[in-house]
């Protein structure tokens, strides 16, 4: 039949995409250079989405964490690591994929990262490392592209939001937030007076939703897992409860568990629907399966003050920014 994969040949484009979606990032960024046709295919929004979802379904998200209290100095850069549990592209268990990302140098990125949404983080920082010139930026660790957003001139009160092209939502946190999440075009925050606030980007309306019945003094955080909002609550006796939001303001108790194998672990969030990440007292990361109650060391010890380390659940994407 004399089939060729290039355009002009009879090999259909959708089958080419079927093959390309299985390739890792590095190969795809390189193969943009093959021809005009391949450049177009790999850059197309349809393919970016296909690739993100293909890998998202096959692999667990990676963990990205950064030390929010350590300032970025020139030799230290951003104290941040992206690491994956098991990844043929980047090494085995506990191997950092990206450590101290050099391409962020010069942006004076300060302490706070948000997201990720579709593989892209947003951050607040300063354009210059010598004087204070605040800016907002976006960062895609997979393509190593960093960009700053045009300056915005308004006073954040009480919360300010950012929405880009209807795909992203990043929450920027004045002191009253605990955590925030973006779901179905609606942004959710937990605020300190026990309310769950939401903003619908379509109708531009704020709502106050009820939260699950968690005592005020219990530690709790909001998370987006498997496409639904969940609230994690912790009592003083290390008993954790996970609540699932069935519809706005309606909550179901999903799991209750107690980490008994370690003393006073620091909860750092959820990796997937049943795996929580903890930090033990010597700053080693480990995972805990809430169903099987198994703990598993991730083979990685954090440097720095564990109280100020943020953990993000990160899936790579080719999304251009």
């Amino acid at each position, binding site marked *: *039949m004399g089939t060729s994969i290039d355009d002009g040949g009879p090999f259909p484009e959708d089958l080419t995409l079927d093959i390309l979606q299985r390739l890792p990032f590095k190969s795809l960024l390189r193969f943009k250079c093959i021809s005009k046709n391949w450049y177009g295919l790999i850059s197309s929004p349809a393919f970016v989405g296909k690739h993100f979802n293909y890998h998202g379904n096959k692999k667990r998200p990676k963990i990205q964490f950064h030390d929010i209290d350590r300032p970025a100095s020139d030799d230290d850069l951003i104290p941040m690591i992206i690491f994956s549990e098991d990844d043929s592209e980047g090494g085995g268990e506990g191997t950092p994929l990206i450590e101290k990302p050099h391409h962020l140098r010069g942006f004076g990125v300060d302490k706070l990262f948000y997201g990720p949404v579709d593989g892209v983080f947003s951050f607040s920082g300063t354009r210059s490392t010598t004087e204070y010139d605040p800016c907002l930026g976006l960062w895609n660790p997979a393509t190593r592209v960093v960009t700053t957003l045009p300056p915005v001139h308004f006073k954040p009160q009480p919360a300010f939001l950012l929405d880009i092209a209807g795909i992203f939502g990043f929450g920027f946190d004045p002191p009253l937030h605990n955590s925030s999440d973006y779901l179905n075009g609606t942004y959710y925050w937990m605020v300190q007076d026990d309310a769950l606030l939401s903003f619908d980007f379509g109708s531009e309306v704020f709502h106050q939703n009820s939260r699950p019945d968690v005592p005020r003094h219990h530690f709790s955080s909001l998370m987006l897992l498997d496409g639904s909002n969940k609230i994690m609550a912790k009592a003083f006796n290390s008993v954790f409860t996970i609540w699932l939001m069935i519809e706005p303001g309606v909550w179901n108790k999903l799991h209750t568990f107690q980490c008994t194998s370690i003393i006073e672990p620091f909860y750092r969030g959820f990796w997937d629907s049943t795996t929580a990440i903890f930090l033990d007292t010597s700053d080693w990361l480990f995972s805990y399966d809430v169903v099987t109650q198994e703990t598993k060391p991730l083979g990685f010890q954090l440097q720095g003050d564990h109280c100020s380390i943020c953990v993000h659940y990160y899936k790579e994407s080719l999304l251009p920014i």
Partner: protein
Amino acid sequence: MVKLKSNDDKEFEVEEAAVIQSEMIKNMIEDGCATSVIPLPNIDSKTLIKVIEYLNKHINMGKAAETGEEDDLKEFDEQFVNMGWEELFDVIMAANYLNIHELMELCCQSAADRLKNKSVRAVREMLKITNDLTEEEEQEIINDAPWAFEGPEIDDTVN
């Protein structure tokens, strides 16, 4: 038995249990449209022979798991995809047309594995793709992600 006819007018008899791994033919049989010969105008005899070989080997996937023949099947799959690019693309197109999910997976993954670590030059040569980017365009793409073009894993050989 089901009769299949390739686009070069060759007929092949295949057991129904094997051929229903193709969703397309399974639907035809269920709808009663497979009474005589099923013509396959998109598939030549050479490709159809490969596909039938795969279908016959994978006839009882469930049984293989029970009898411990999984390794045998795995070895067969590895041997099966050991073919040239043109042949592989023909099988992918046939698997797509006949809607044989497992065969699609096997062949597309094999193609991706072969391409994964190749250099730009090697891919162009392997797949007979003409570079129509200007030198400036090419340099711009490299400058966007220079690290993607470097690394000990990158393989410039054509095979």
